């Protein structure tokens, strides 16, 4: 399985918690940026590779002219062998998409829409710096359905400043009433270099403590389970058959090719990434640069560790058979000590059908387990 990721580093306004590679106030660069991305795609050394998923993320892809996104997808199709029935996702902010835009994207071949909603509470939305209301989101969701998106994912956040268990349950209720196929629910993490980080260090921001945060996590797992959504990864839930195929590539250490500013690639055993800044990226591409400095890495112990800590994120866990197929070694041998400890002694892992997985009650403390798998 191979996926293509394309990064759109533009936003109308940065949210207060966001430390992603995105910028506001430079959307006039989007056309030249789009050209650079298309040029990078056309000159990719992995041209003609079979592609199973395409994902355009951001930033906010929908905050720029949709024609750019459509052109990008077209050049991907032109340069690569995009499989029949490939999953093709675009991310969307409710404040930036109308029916017309969504319809154009759907018609161009995007078949999965990932909408950032975060909360159904307008006061919270404002507090975290979102540019839309919950009403905007509902309209966006309906427009997306009308435009023909039959696979919609909604991003939500919990552990927000001032968020109560009740507000969280209310958000879950309102979202599930709309019936998206997929829901991602992330705990707010306060990252360095964000406005929230500054506020927190000044003591002006208080978020629910770990116990309350855990309650919220347990709530979302249970709430969504009751409504037919399976937790297939730590923070991801879907109706049967609607797991994000693109993200599954990451969690199973599959191949992905990244295009655009700061995009990472892991393909044919090589890891590399593009320049982070928008102008840097454009200059780099227009002067004939090619982001591929990483030498081919043989599957080594580091890769096995990554395979484990990524795979353990999944509810299905890691397959001993797949491990052996990929690395030619027995998982039980390579990770003898942590497996013995976590499977048999403190029993935070369980084994079923040749897979080893984290017991659901330990999912939310999984760092304590995964760090033992760093050899």
């Amino acid at each position, binding site marked *: 399985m191979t996926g293509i*990721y394309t990064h759109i580093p533009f936003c109308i306004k940065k949210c207060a918690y966001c430390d992603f590679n995105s910028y506001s106030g430079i959307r006039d660069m989007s056309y030249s940026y789009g050209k650079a991305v298309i040029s990078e795609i056309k000159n990719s050394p992995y041209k003609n590779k079979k592609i199973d998923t395409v994902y355009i993320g951001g930033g906010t892809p929908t905050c720029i002219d949709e024609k750019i996104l459509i052109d990008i997808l077209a050049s991907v199709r032109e340069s690569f062998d995009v499989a029949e029935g490939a999953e093709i996702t675009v991310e969307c902010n409710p404040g930036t998409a109308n029916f017309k835009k969504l319809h154009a994207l759907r018609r161009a071949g995007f078949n999965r829409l990932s909408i950032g909603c975060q909360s159904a509470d307008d006061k919270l939305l404002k507090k975290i710096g979102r540019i839309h209301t919950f009403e905007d989101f509902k309209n966006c969701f309906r427009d997306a359905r009308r435009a023909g998106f039959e696979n919609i994912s909604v991003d939500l956040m919990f552990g927000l400043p001032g968020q109560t268990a009740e507000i969280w349950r209310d958000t879950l209720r309102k979202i599930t009433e709309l019936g998206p196929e997929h829901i991602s629910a*992330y*705990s707010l*993490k306060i990252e360095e270099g964000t406005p929230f980080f500054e506020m927190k260090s000044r003591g002006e921001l208080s978020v629910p403590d*770990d*116990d309350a*945060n*855990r309650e919220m*996590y347990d709530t979302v797992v249970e709430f969504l389970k009751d409504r037919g959504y399976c937790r297939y990864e*730590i*923070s991801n839930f879907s109706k049967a058959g609607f797991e994000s195929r693109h*993200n599954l*590539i*990451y*969690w199973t250490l599959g191949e*992905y090719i*990244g295009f655009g500013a*700061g*995009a*990472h690639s*892991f393909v044919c055993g090589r890891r590399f*990434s593009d320049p982070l800044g928008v102008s840097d990226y454009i200059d780099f591409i227009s002067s004939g640069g090619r982001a591929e400095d990483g030498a081919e890495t043989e599957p080594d112990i580091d890769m096995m*560790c*990554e395979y484990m*800590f*990524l795979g353990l*994120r999944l509810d299905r866990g890691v397959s001993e058979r797949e491990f052996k197929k990929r690395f030619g070694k027995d998982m039980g041998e390579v990770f003898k000590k942590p497996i013995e*400890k976590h499977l048999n*002694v*403190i029993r*935070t892992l369980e084994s079923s059908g040749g897979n080893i997985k984290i017991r659901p009650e*330990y*999912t*939310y*403390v*999984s*760092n*304590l*387990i*995964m*760090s*033992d798998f*760093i050899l």
Partner: protein
Amino acid sequence: MYSRDNIRNFSIIAHVDHGKSTLADRLLELTGALTQREMQEQILDNMELERERGITIKARAVRLIYKAKDGKEYYLNLIDTPGHVDFNYEVSRSLAACEGAVLVVDAAQGIEAQTLANTYLAFEHDLEIVPVINKIDLPGARPDEVKQEIEDIIGIDGENAPLISAKNGINIEEVLEKIVELIPPPGGDENAPLKALIFDSYYDAYKGVIAYVRVVDGRLRPGQRIKMMATGSEFDVVDVGYLLPNGMLSADEISAGEVAFITASIKSVQDVKVGDTVTTASKGAAEALPGYKEVKSMVYSGIYPADGARYDDLRDALEKLKLNDAALNFEAETSIALGFGFRCGFLGLLHMEIIQERLEREFNLDLVTTAPSVEYKVIKTDGTVLSVDNPTNMPEPSEIDYMEEPIVRAAILTPKEYVGSIMELCQGRRGSYIDMEYLDTNRVQLNYMMPLNEIIYDFFDALKSRTRGYASFDYEFEKYQKSDLVKLDMLLNGEMVDALSFIVHKERAYPRGRKMAEKLKEVIPRQLFEVPIQAAVGGKIIARETVKAMRKDVLAKCYGGDISRKRKLLEKQKEGKKRMRQVGSVEVPQEAFMSVLKLDE
């Protein structure tokens, strides 16, 4: 040759921080010029050799040459003394090598516990005391009052004490004049059989052990076969000579009254015991000099490498330190919780701290040390007597008839307003009051008998904090005394952690167990599961705390681009775990094992 009348052998004694080392430096400086000019040719070779080998001579004794106002040249042998109660025996041997002592008293602080303890020791050796009042240029200086204290408390004439500032070199010459004037020259009979007192030793990788001696009677020469009277071991003298500020100066002969070094291809400091008498192997002295004692460890602690792989490095480091420190004892021990390490015996708390610090600083080791213990005597029901310095080795209660613990005589000097608070502290530590004396109108000496195991935890800190640092404290071993002692065990997740056990008086077991459980709860991080912490005496749980299970420790979002960042996060977490000790399935931070030291009762 010079006349014995021109020799002065002396020490400097003082309370810690009253300026002993600074004064010694000034004396060296003031006499150094002459020494260098006259001795340059002779010592040059010596120095170069040392420079080549990178040796620095441990300057524990040094000969200074001083031209006094009477026009004569005097040879002043300054013998250094360790300034702490842990080294009382070493101090007493150094003093035994002298005829006089310069007593340094801080002009602001006045007389303190160690001032007195050291002065009494000097009195015991009939030394002439030369009082000196230091730091007279400090704003808080009250030299007249301190003079009066010297007269009232010590009972010697303080009126003519030089008023000096060692730091700023004020009136140092006056000290030298007083030394010449007041301290008598050494006695002794050059023609009697050899008797030389060992007051220090030093290990040199090339010459073997260098013994520092004071020749009391007879003569010492290279080629002589000598005998250590306490150990019975014999050696052939290779070299003898004087200790100069910047090296060693060989001599053909050293005779009664002089201070000298001896080398004799001695391989181990164990053969050169401080306080032992050196004599000739044949026609030697009939009786050794008085006062020799076998040095005994008073405080014991387990020392483990934080990284188990550095066990060999730790052993090598301890062996190196032992080359120069006959008072350090160690033997291998194993702890279920801490792995392989050493049980070490020390003279006292300071000695323990010095060794630990040297291991960490000079040998770059990360250590885990267990709570210090004293040596208990266990009288078993079958009549046998067992010495226990490691709580793990304490027999089952059913096998014990009774136990004894070491008791010390503690002297605490304090301004009178803190008396109540100190008495409360001492009583809380099972001290029994002996008496109290007013040293002057403001200061009091409190005398207590106290169990040593109550002092080795945090007594000194507690004393300092209750008296805002004004009290000083000194103790010496008194006796073993029958006591109702129990072994307190700590259990984590139901498993006993051997390295956390300690022996405690029965009545103190409950509060200590409770404090210990509370402390452990503070230092043990939340884990994947709930961790019960229990304190138990003889299998009975007396206190309990719980470390709740970790509720949240997760990378919420993890996609392609940032795998390496997430990996780094997990690696960091793994590094953190490395500093933990795995006790059963519980991860315990290293500092937990030391936390018993800071119970803050």
